């Protein structure tokens, strides 16, 4: 198990290096081939030549790509100092680059934005797990009835309606129409109830989409599991039906759900761009959206890395969890 973990972590690290190189390639090499000057994109298109040159120097853009990647990684562990034109900017470790657009290091931006996205993802996950799985189980148990059909119609609409539609709709009704919820983000450390009030609609909107998917997968899995021989065995033992469903069937049903949950959380940590943009939540998704709008490449690079890292970690956690749940799976 430990050896497996070490091996997987090593593979993840290698993967990250590859991702960094690919992202570097996309952001720095491709424009070079296309004949676009990166340095001038950092300072704006009417840039003074001296400013362009200073940025090129500061960022080491004239260095070969491998040394740029090396500098980037060195910065993560040892910090980095950018200097040019008599101005010295220190970016403390872990330095994930420096945004010359907004004059701030990338890492504090990530750590500032991360809790918002994490709160959004986890809160929504709790909701969609509870409601999605419950709806899926109920519609499996009430298969073919009006309850099942109704739940599945709702699920289908949840899956097919885009976030910005449901988001805007809920805002139009509850915030701008009925004035029930203000839906403005308040940091958790400022006010717990304010945070909750600001997050509840994003949670529900995001959870609606995912709950729909989870309900469908839960229903299908549950129906399959209920036909398993070991469920019949459990009944033959004289177990109550609640225990048969709640313990024996749920345990098996949760396996694919946990796998999905891991992957979905990993992807959401990278930023629920639409939800964050619709509800104006200052999370990673909005950071990357604004960065794209402002061509703020270091931020994009940083968020991409965090996303990749989150997905890799989620993958690993899912694999380990899988082995914990299902004794038949061996980590090797």
């Amino acid at each position, binding site marked *: 198990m430990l050896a497996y973990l070490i091996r997987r972590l090593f593979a993840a690290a290698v993967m990250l290096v590859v991702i960094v190189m690919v992202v570097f390639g996309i952001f720095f090499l491709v424009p070079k081939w296309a*004949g*676009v000057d990166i340095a001038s994109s950092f*300072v*704006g*298109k*009417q*840039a*003074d030549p*001296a*400013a362009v*040159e*200073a*940025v090129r120097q500061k960022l080491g853009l004239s260095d070969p790509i491998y040394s740029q990647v090396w500098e980037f990684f060195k910065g993560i562990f040892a910090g980095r100092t950018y200097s*040019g*034109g*008599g*101005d010295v*900017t220190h970016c403390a470790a872990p330095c994930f680059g420096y945004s*010359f657009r*907004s*004059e*701030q290091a990338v890492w504090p931006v990530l750590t*500032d934005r991360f809790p918002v996205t994490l709160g959004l993802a986890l809160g929504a996950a709790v909701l969609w797990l509870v409601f999605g799985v419950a709806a899926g189980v109920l519609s499996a148990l009430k298969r073919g009835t009006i309850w099942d059909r109704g739940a599945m119609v709702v699920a289908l609409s949840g899956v097919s309606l885009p976030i910005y539609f449901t988001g*805007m709709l809920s*805002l*139009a009704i509850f*915030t*701008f129409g009925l004035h029930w919820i*203000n839906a*403005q983000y308040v940091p958790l450390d400022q006010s717990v109830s304010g945070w909750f009030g600001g997050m509840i609609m994003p949670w529900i909107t995001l959870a609606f989409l995912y709950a729909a998917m989870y309900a469908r997968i839960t229903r299908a899995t549950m129906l399959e599991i209920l036909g398993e021989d070991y469920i019949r065995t459990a009944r033959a033992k004289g177990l109550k039906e609640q225990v048969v469903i709640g313990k024996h069937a749920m345990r098996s049903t949760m396996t694919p759900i946990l796998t999905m949950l891991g992957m979905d959380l990993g992807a959401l940590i990278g930023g629920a761009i639409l939800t*964050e*943009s*619709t*509800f*104006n939540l*200052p999370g990673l998704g*909005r*950071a990357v*959206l*604004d960065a794209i*709008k*402002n*061509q703020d490449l270091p931020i994009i690079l940083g968020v991409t890395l965090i996303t990749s890292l989150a997905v890799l970690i989620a993958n690993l956690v899912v694999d380990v969890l899988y082995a914990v749940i299902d004794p038949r799976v061996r980590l090797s």
Partner: protein
Amino acid sequence: MTTQRTSGRRKQAFAAAAAVAALLTTAACGGGGSDDNNGSKTGAAGFDAANNKVAQASLVKKGGTLRFGGAQDADSWDTTRGYYGFMWDFARYYSRQLVTGKAEPGKAGAELTPDLATGLAKVTDDGKTYTYTLRDGITWEDGKAITSKDVKYGIERVWAQDVLSGGPTYLKDFLDPKGEYKGPYKDTSKDKLGLKAITTPDDKTIVFHLPKANSDFQEVLGLVSASPVRQDMDTKSKYSLKPFSSGPYKFESYSPGKSLTLVRNTNWKQSSDPVRKAYPDKITVQFFSDANQLDQRLLNGDLDLDINQTGMSPQGRTTALKEHKANLDNPISGYIRYAAFPQSVKPFDNVECRKAVILGADHVSLQTARGGPVAGGDIGTNMLPPSVPGAEGQKYDPYNIAGADKNGNVEKAKAALKACGKPNGFSTTIAVRNNKPVEVATAQSLQASLKKVGITAQIDQFDGSQTTGIIGSPENVKKKGYGIIIMGWGPDFPTVQGFGLPLWDSKYIAPSGNNNFALINDKTIDGLFDQYVTTLDDAGKTKLSTEINHKVMEGAYYLPFTFEKFINWRGDNLANVYTTDNYSGTYDFVNLGLKNPKK
């Protein structure tokens, strides 16, 4: 302002010499008195109530929190580095200048008035020396007095373009055209005040020595890039995160792209400031990724106004016009939307073929594509924005664009084609930015009406983020055969040079970053500009402005679409609201107040 609007503000050099202040006095005061009615049921002053006039000035109460929202953060809050129009407007909250625009609506707002200085410049030495004396009682946010050396240091920062990129460089071009000074961060003198063109004989006196007279100099000193900066508070590239305040408010917190909060600078004294009223206690700015969200918050009353001042998005605009018309103003933005005809692309080397396009176009449909008369603007009939002195608006309409031929005149266009030697028409390409849906719609409208006169145009949507590299390169334009380029342009400040010099003067044709898309190389126009910058009386300047505009139109280099207007939201709780030509028809932020501070 968005980058789009900003592009017009960026001028690499400026060679005008004119007494702008004098000129503005001649121009009729666009405003009129203040309108103090109580407005609609919600308290809103009424449609266009703050457009070139003051709305509800008497209802203003001191205190409260003024709440801005924006879809775009400033390029930089560093006074040296900002170039967005709204940033210049907003920066007056925390920065003061020697001179600045008057706190008055419309054209008067663009008139200069003393701010840190006791009066306008004492100009001597044939217009080459400008002397100012500083007021008493002017202080930094820590209570220390603002000195002439702080002003000099602030201006010197413009030279440090390698660190403080982004802002306008007029000061550098006027005071040190040869670029001898290397900026304060490379300054070897002990006090870092090595710029020879500025002297500070004492803490209250500052003297500017221009190598060459330039009567627009004082106008440039009115830009926020001429604000004082105190050397011990200069955090260089990070100054934009927390500028050290010389104005009535100071930065409390700023998180780029998220929010900005200003609070009262308790060391600022009302008695020392003739311009700023500083009504609210606190100013907040909240940024959004989604313009619709912003509009919803404005409509909902969660925010008082849009900091970007670029107009509402189509969705919010529709709702607002229907349900909250009393909260809207419909000012002219100073922008002209147009098509330019590069003469390097045949047959646009022939003036008759250019005329054929102008005559054949359906101007009403182009206006509709731009958003119609309210959201898009009036049909543009010539190339000088109505807010610029010398402009005649729709009265000057050499091609009957807004008149009899407003839906296009096929006969006249065909006659022009015949005169051009292309009686059966020709084929060409319309270049349009792919990230501007409105411009793409305009291109399609133009394409449709040209079809009727036998001109076949295909539309090439190019990468809008790479505008400078694609249409800014005359070589590329020729290679791609872009006969028609869809663009827009607005002035940094309203003079004919401020708007037209980079567009029309042959000296501004550049191999890259070119803005003279039509490649106008007309000795008459060049000569008129030269004459303009040396003309001191405003009557003469106005006449020359008109003349330049006429020459450009006679050359048929441009097909103007609209004199742009936009729909601006004015929250119910706002008082003392007015648009100012100093910032292209946007509200003058620095004197906004609230009716009910507790709201």
